[in-house]
């Protein structure tokens, strides 16, 4: 007997945690699904274009006016959220407007590396303060605020633009090494979306396609992204960390060759105080106007050389239109998304 009553205590302990019957993959009200910055990594002063993917139960919202602004206030260490409460509230002095509209472009604040990056801020008495901590990819982020109207009033979403600031607390040699071998992130691209029907038949879903599903049909969706090299191979068109514009100008001379997939990037390990080359982890968010996805999110970690992610889906039982969205994120803040319109109809 595999599950004896003997360990009732432990078994029931698992039952102590309630099931929150929430399907995150279902869009039940207007909401932002993703924000994309182009470029996804910028220096202070560089102009970045921001685009939001907004969804509602009826489908993609294309003409929504968002109120874009930069957060310019760092948060106290006592606040554990990603941005300061004043920025969330939109308090005066805490945000700097970018513009309004479905998209907006604005220069990254000049002080971004001092407020949110490795440059020590000045404290009230003029002493050098504590710089911001990097994220787990070694990067720093400039918060971007997007306010938008909803049925209940105004909602807000935040995006974080990766800012290229260099490293904190390293010597000049390491700083130069980092500047030479770190290549700024680029947004990923969704190379293909495929659906696999029961029986194994695979179909490409092009951008403007409107595939047809039978009510209750079980399929599997596959999102693919380009394969990116991690090892140096001069001439492959991609500048990886082990290549520089000196030893491989074909790949690394400006503009350096990039790869819109799971890129290799140069990382400074603060524990070992040495550099290493990592591959980006990739995440895929799956949402739809109707329940059906087995998982709301899937992904591939940086150690796995796989360039796709799969998710089973069950079509609604009632005929009608259906919208699904896939959002592809790399771990350095790059974003790609696609909306897929479906028709659910009896065969």
């Amino acid at each position, binding site marked *: 007997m595999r599950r004896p009553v003997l360990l009732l205590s432990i078994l029931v302990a698992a039952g102590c945690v309630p099931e929150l019957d*929430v399907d995150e993959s279902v869009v039940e009200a207007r909401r932002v699904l993703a924000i994309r910055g182009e470029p996804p990594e910028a220096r202070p002063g560089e102009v970045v274009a921001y685009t939001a993917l907004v969804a509602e139960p009826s489908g993609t919202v294309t003409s929504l006016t968002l109120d874009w602004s930069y957060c310019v206030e760092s948060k106290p260490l006592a606040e554990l959220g990603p941005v300061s409460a004043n920025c969330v509230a939109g308090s005066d002095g805490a945000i700097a407007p970018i513009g309004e509209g479905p998209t907006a472009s604005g220069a990254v604040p000049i002080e971004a590396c001092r407020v949110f990056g490795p440059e020590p801020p000045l404290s009230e008495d003029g002493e050098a303060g504590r710089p*911001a901590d990097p994220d787990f990819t070694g990067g720093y982020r400039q918060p971007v605020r997007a306010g938008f109207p909803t049925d209940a009033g105004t909602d807000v979403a935040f995006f974080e633009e990766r800012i290229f600031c260099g490293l904190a607390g390293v010597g000049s040699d390491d700083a130069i090494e980092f500047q030479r071998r770190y290549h700024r992130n680029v947004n990923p691209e969704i190379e293909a979306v495929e659906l696999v029907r029961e029986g194994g038949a695979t179909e490409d879903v092009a951008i403007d396609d409107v595939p047809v599903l039978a009510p209750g049909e079980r399929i599997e969706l596959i999102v693919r992204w380009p394969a990116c090299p991690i090892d140096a191979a001069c001439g492959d068109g991609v500048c990886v960390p082990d290549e520089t514009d000196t030893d491989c100008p074909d790949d690394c001379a400006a503009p350096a060759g990039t790869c819109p997939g799971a890129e290799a990037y140069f990382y400074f390990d603060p524990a070992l105080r040495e550099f290493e080359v990592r591959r980006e982890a990739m995440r895929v968010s799956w949402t739809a106007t109707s329940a059906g996805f087995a998982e709301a999110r899937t992904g591939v970690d940086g150690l796995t050389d796989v360039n796709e992610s799969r998710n089973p889906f069950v079509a609604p039982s009632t005929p009608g239109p259906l919208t699904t969205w896939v959002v592809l994120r790399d771990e350095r803040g790059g974003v790609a998304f696609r909306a897929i319109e479906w028709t659910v109809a009896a065969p």
Partner: protein
Amino acid sequence: MKRLFSFTFAAASLLLSSADARVALAQRSAARAEAQVPTLTRPPELLRFVEAVYPPEEIAAGRSANVVLELTIDGTGRVTDASVVESAGAAFDAAALAAARQFEFRPAEFDGQPGAIRIHYQYVFTLPAPPEPVVPDTAILAGVVRDEASGQPLAGVTVAVASPGAEGAAPTTASATTDAEGRFAVEGVVPGRVTVTLSGGPLSSIQTEETLAAGERLEVSYDVALPPPPEEGEPTDDMEIVVVAPEIRREVVASEISAEQATSVPGTGGDVLRVVESLPGVGRPAVGSGQLVVWGASPEDTRVYLDGVPLPRLYHEGGLRSVVHPAFVESLALIPGGAGAPYGRGLGGVVLVEGRGPTEEGFHGTIGADLLDASASLGYRRANGSYQAAAGRFGLLDSFAGFLDDDVTEFVPIPRFWDGQARAGFVLGGGATIDIVGVLGGDRYERGVPNPDPALATRDQRDLDFYRLYARYRRDAGDGTTVEIVPWLGYDRSYRATSFGDLTSSVEARNVRLGLRALYAYRAADWVTLRAGIDAEIVLGDYQRQGSLGLPAREGDIRVFGQPPPDTLSFDTWESQQIGVAPWIEARIDTWNERLHITPGLRLDPYARSASRRVPVDATTPELGTFVYDFTVEPRLAADLDVTDWLSVRGSIGRYARLPSSDDVSPVFGNPALPRARGTQILAGVAVHPIPALEIEATGFLTTSEALATRTTDPTPLQARALEALGEGRVKGIQGLVRANLDHGLFGWVAYTLSRAERKDSPDVDWRLFDLDQTHVLTAVAGWTSEFGLELSGRFRFASGFPRTDVIGAYYDAARDRFQPLFGEHNGIRLKSFVQLDLRVGYTAEVGESELVVYLDVQNATNRENVEELIYSPDYTDRRTIRSLPILPVVGLQWRF
């Protein structure tokens, strides 16, 4: 009896003397006819005198007398006939005749030849002189020793009476052992104030004091709160543990409970130390936390000592078991506040665990197991009190993990734990003993929740190990002079790691600890005892921490259960050396006919800390260390007044300090310059004992603390200032205890604490509730132990829910594809109150000369759905509760031999 006597005979008068008698011989008459009879040439000579028995009734009547006898002596000197010539009464006559018939003489000689003769002999009975008056110079302490619970006499208890020597003289000790009726009489006690020690048999050493006058016979009755004495051949086991507050100090407020009762309390699973959570002043810990919240103090503020040696914690991870094997627990005391000068480095309570070796001669041990763990102990005690013993215990839960669904083991932490102890005790003579003890404990805890999205996969891992090795030398001179020295060595290692996706936050600490506790107590006068000592502790540590600044969470962090921490990454590695050498002194003054006891004390606590880094690691900045030194003066004052025999009032006030946590002095995650937190504790209470079987106590308390380390609220803090010593705390409340020890094995208590614990994270913010504040904590325990080995007990607990910060909204974090909560008032709501009934039934069966104990411990017998935590939907639009454990039956078995 001394006597004077004389006799006469007819032919001659002679004077005979001996050491004890004056004898007169007289010739009664001249020879009747010199010509007809031979001439007496040598009178008879008394060779063997036999003393007559003085008739007692005549002594009582005060009469003396002369009896004249006629004795016929043959030619060999033997008395062949005796008769009364002049009577003095039947009693005197009979006594004189009986004695005289045993006389032996040198025969009389006639013309040089032996011959028979008849003589008169006067036996004089003289009253003995009255004895010289004896001035008594000693006293007698006599009485009876009984079991307080049953009223039954305790046989085999040694009652030792130590009298202080006169000036310049050595102290003296006299003792006696109680008989089958529990009676004893100690003679030859030097008068004055004496220390009476009861020990032996089923009894652990208990001391009290009496005052005796010269020549006095003081009758006393000692009713001791102990388990019933073991029957003949019954082995000693952990059921005989005596849990009492150490007699060495009388704290103003301290909770005591017998181990027999403690092990019978549901929820303890036979682990004596787990009864702490049912005592007054102790908050209910969150299930699985093992935290000890005493009077609203942070868990790390309550110190735990085993034989005076600090332990890193009282419970294993998860709170299922204590870290000290119960077989070697002599006593337990919880001092929730107002601890005396010997104790410091904490702003909360003090848990004192006294260890011991085997109490019975020969080999004895235990083997037991239940759902949680398996344990064994074995010890050998010699007749002189020396012993060797060892015990071990390891958790079993992980052994069953293979039988569980993977999703259960991934979500529910399965703690693994073990602990062990080895002890050797030696009796050195002169009241001195030394114990050499090694203690270890370990915990492993791991769980992981996988997710198709690697960024959402989580994993927790905790490794905790500690080791202690110490020697404890004690000498009790018997005159109130006590010496205790405990040098100790320890090593602690802890590793905690939490992973959210690719971000792993971890803290690893390795500490080598050295310490010395020493105590010298001296009775300076009948009314004052001086105690002085030193409490030294050195911590040599190296630490490594990486990951999010938000992990591990701190008290006061505003977050919700399961919320990922900030995904920023920091790293630090540092070393520190902390040295604290605190001399202390206190006096116990007994005055006002010993009704008023005042204990002033002073603890001086110089402290130094050096750390390897002053600022974060930076290739562009020279690596600088830091040195912090400070000195605290911690006065303490306690007093208790026995208003009547059944009513006493007490109070205390004192200053306390606590070292900063080693984790907090990181230049990256904390502040290397953190000072010690400081606090004041004030308490006052009343105790009523209307009848011996009933105790009623109430204590009000107020504690304040300052310089608590809190996260900085400065948006642009300086380097190495992630924490600031700006926090304040205050706790006020009252605790009550009603405890009954009734006849027929019935016992029980009701403990209630009403309190409010608050914190202030910086001077410019308002007070808020402490994260672990519980307004009401009520614990009611009742139990019954039958003569036939059956135990029944129950525990009812009610506790206010923990404060929580409500979520009033959320926003979408597009960078991480998750919602972030927006919070309302800090700790502005509470979890639902906790109500639980636990039951226990046990049975002890004799198996030959051993015992088999089986018990069923049912926690949450009513299967009530208590709330342990709030959990939110991913978008924070729905809130549910995580329930506490449902009904949990645990069956245990133990063999004692």
